[in-house]
């Protein structure tokens, strides 16, 4: 990506509502053709940022460029972006074809070409022949597809999606996720997705920006952001994480040797923004990176503990294992292949871990 000019350039963008800072000095680049997600809890400013990309809101300061052109002050109706709204915003007084054709009307394509493009868009979202239906005769998933077709038919440079799947039930949501990803790859348009669902962001995106309190905490690929979260908050938001207290033993450039409680000494890479407080550091390990050792199994790095709690999830079992010398019990996720669902509370278990899976957090002080 370094040589290519980014599709979206966000520079020092802030948005204040009175004294409240919805967005604070945001800097972000999104490459052309990228599926980019803004992930964060509600109120983190992700929707505000998306609305600014759409032109429905204006930054208090900073600039936004799309495809090389500064469009900070350009209104929504003049931007090469189109949006899929959270409520889908299907015009209730128009039928499906009229909804999809709505934006095309201004282009004066002529009736034949317009109808062709509407049909093509409905085909693309797998709703062929739905043109005459009214908006209120559609199911949630169908409304979502219409909203998608209505935006895609405009052939925007950037498609903006505001929590498009949050109103759908689980099964339909998973189906639409796959479809959305396939669609994005086939049309090659830059997608910017806003979501609070980390699984959705991980499954769909090329890159994810995690946001908290109007600031971007980390931007990385799904794998990196999950495996190498830089802060405790990011780690927590993306899934379970066991935090361990560590003591810095040696420092060599970006590499840090940390002594951890019970997990031995490991040499870890310093994340950006790393601050040590009095030689202390926080190290994390994901629950699925810990593994129960069955009878006769041996591992290079082992821990022994007692099961304090368990929760059964069908395909997996979540265990909470108390370890001597650790303040909080470790949480572990085991698939039920070898009988993890048959382990009882109070039973003694041996655990294996890989020191490679340890990550150093930028913010110190465990718990």
């Amino acid at each position, binding site marked *: 990506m370094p040589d290519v000019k980014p599709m979206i350039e966000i520079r020092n963008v802030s948005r204040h509502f009175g004294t409240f800072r919805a967005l604070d000095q945001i800097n972000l680049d999104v490459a052309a053709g990228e599926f980019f997600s803004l992930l964060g809890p509600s109120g983190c400013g992700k929707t505000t940022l998306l609305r600014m990309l759409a032109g429905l809101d204006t930054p208090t300061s900073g600039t936004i460029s799309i495809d090389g052109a500064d469009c900070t002050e350009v209104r929504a109706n003049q931007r090469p972006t189109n949006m899929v709204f959270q409520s889908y*915003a299907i*015009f209730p007084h128009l039928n499906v074809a009229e909804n999809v054709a*709505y934006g095309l009307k201004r282009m004066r394509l002529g009736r034949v070409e317009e109808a062709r493009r509407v049909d093509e868009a409905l085909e693309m979202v797998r709703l062929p022949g739905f043109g005459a239906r009214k908006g209120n005769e559609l199911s949630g998933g169908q409304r979502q597809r219409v909203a998608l077709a209505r935006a895609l038919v405009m052939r925007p440079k950037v498609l903006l999606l505001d929590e498009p799947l949050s109103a759908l039930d689980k099964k339909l949501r998973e189906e639409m996720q796959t479809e959305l990803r396939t669609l994005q790859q086939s049309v090659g348009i830059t997608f910017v997705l806003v979501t609070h669902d980390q699984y959705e962001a991980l499954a769909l995106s090329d890159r994810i920006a995690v946001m908290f309190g109007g600031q971007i905490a980390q931007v990385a690929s799904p794998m990196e952001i999950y495996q190498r979260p830089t802060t405790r908050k990011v780690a927590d938001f993306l899934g379970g994480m066991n935090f361990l207290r560590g003591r810095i033993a040696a420092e060599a450039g970006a590499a840090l040797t940390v002594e951890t409680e019970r997990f031995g000494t490991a040499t870890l890479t310093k994340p950006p923004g790393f601050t040590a407080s009095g030689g202390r550091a926080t190290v994390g390990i994901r629950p699925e990176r810990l593994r129960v050792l069955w009878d006769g199994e041996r591992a290079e790095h082992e821990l022994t503990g007692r099961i304090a709690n368990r929760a059964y999830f069908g395909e997996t079992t979540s265990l909470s294992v108390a370890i001597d010398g650790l303040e909080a019990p470790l949480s572990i996720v085991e698939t039920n292949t070898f009988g993890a669902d048959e382990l009882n509370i109070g039973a003694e278990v041996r655990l294996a871990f890989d020191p490679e899976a340890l990550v150093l957090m930028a913010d110190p002080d465990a718990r």
Partner: protein
Amino acid sequence: MSGRVRRWAGSEAARGLALISPTLLYAMAMLLLPVIIIILFSFWKQTFLTVDHSFRLDNYRAALTQPIYRDLFLRSLWISLTVSVATVVMAYPVAWYISFHGGRNKNLWLFLITVPFLTSYLLRVMSWKLVLGYNGVLNSLLLWLGLIHSPIESLLYNADSVIITLVHSWVAFAILPIFVSLEKIDRSLVEAGQDLGDGLFRSLTKIVLPLSLPGVTSAFLIVMIPTVGDYVTPKLVGGTEGVMIASAIEVNFGRAMNWPLGAALSVTTMVLVASAAGLMVLALRLAVRGVRR
């Protein structure tokens, strides 16, 4: 049979009906009964104080054929149509502004609109006499500006002054239903329109107006139906040119002592205003559908 009655008596519908029955009975007694009596009267005949109860259509013949009544009907319809169109046209931007740009002050705006209602309707009508009169505010202003050299006499006591006064009296009643229907429009629909290329004009005509049509329609009816039969305003500011059908009805029920003819005029007015209202609703729908395309 009794089981079915008992089951019905315990149903949600029956309880609802029981709840509204006092109001319903009151409304029936005060609204439906007089209307039935008026309709009966319209087919009778009165000679001085005696009423002949035999069925006849003479009153309707008189109401529909006598030039004076025909003129009054036409003028009443014309005035009420003009008033309702003007009222809705003036009320819409106000309602739109409050709903879309009122921000935190929406309630303050709505309160300000209802402030004139703290004074009597008669006073509000009378105040237009002060504005439009021979030595009134408007004439004085125009004289002072040097735009005219002698006061305009035709400002008051004609159909126009009736229209002006009625529009002023009714505009708040039109603002409220339009405001309510504008409030109900999901703002993301407007934003979706902008996102798809709408400027202000297209946004208004293609999205806001069609979706607020129920409010516009009820505003229209709320103004049109009562103004057809308005009596006080033409009496005070209408002069001879501004007389409306209500005056004729009043004369027949009063001095002329011809209740049956008065009743026939009333019934005819009701039928006319109902059809005119229906036609206007239809026209409004077609107009909006035309704009939408």
